[in-house]
């Protein structure tokens, strides 16, 4: 129960994000095709403006040493670069265009009633597992 109450705020944050994903239309397979056919500015506008707001937010957090609600210092740990960012990135990009969904939208599409996407999500989890299994043998 303690785990539930200490994490419930992240359920609400997720609900907010799920709602925004729907309103931003980035969960639409058609929006993804449009983006990769350069037929609409919509996706570029969404991602670009999200990055600008995220960037300003992080700068403000650092500048004013804003703390968490539990009064901890905010720490951002950067990811460690490997060549996997390129190989994996290209593989993910191919899947992104086929499914019309990155991981967040997979959950959102299911919530939006495209129940067949459950199969896609399970397969993505299987892909994650196979990566973990093959990791020692893959170039990084």
């Amino acid at each position, binding site marked *: 129960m303690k785990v539930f109450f200490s994490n419930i705020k*992240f359920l609400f944050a997720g609900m907010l994000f799920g709602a925004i994903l729907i309103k931003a239309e980035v969960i639409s397979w058609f929006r993804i095709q449009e983006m990769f056919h350069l037929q609409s500015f919509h996706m570029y*506008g969404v991602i670009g403006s999200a990055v600008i*707001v995220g960037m300003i937010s992080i700068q403000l957090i650092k500048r004013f040493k804003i703390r968490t609600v539990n009064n901890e210092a905010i720490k*951002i740990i950067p990811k460690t670069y490997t060549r996997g960012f*390129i190989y994996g990135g290209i593989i*993910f*990009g191919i899947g992104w265009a*086929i499914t019309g969904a990155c*991981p967040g939208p997979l959950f959102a599409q299911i919530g939006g009633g495209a129940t067949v996407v459950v199969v896609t999500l399970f397969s993505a989890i*299987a892909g994650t597992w196979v990566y973990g299994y093959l990791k020692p043998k893959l170039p990084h």
Partner: protein
Amino acid sequence: MNSLIEFIRQPWPWWVSGPLIGLMVPILLILGNKPFGVSSSMKHICAMCLPANISFFNYDWKKEIWNLFFVTGILLGASITWNWLSSQQIDINPKLISELSKYGISNPNNLVPAEQLNWQNLVTLKGIMMTVVGGFLVGFGTRYADGCTSGHSIMGLSNLQGSSLVATCSFMAGGFVSANFIVPAILKL
């Protein structure tokens, strides 16, 4: 109250929805020092359900459980919003719609091309390519790249990490090739 709901229900321009996505970055940091990201949730599910002695899944997933609350929330929030707070109209470029009509896809107001991607078609070659194969590439690729559009393109770029720019360019390169060459080939099946 009704006018507020009507206001939310209409389609939002990118310059409203994009900045709101960006705000998820400080919201998660301030709520509990969490880096914005979604694809790790699938890693935690593997670690929880089938770690199989693989060192990649051998960590205390309970410490990362916030991420599973977060993705459960995404599903719930999307469901409420799509059903009650959305016009379910998406303004897609007519050029794309006419291209897709060749493949029997006509309704761009679905989240997925429902004429092709549905339970009836699941066990056809096309259905398997669009769900099982596509999904596998998303899961495998995001873990190999250590992040997805949220973790790299939004969170990483917001934190000015060069490596996330490399990852984002790779996502886009794969996507351009796939949407223009692979997706049409799958739809022709």
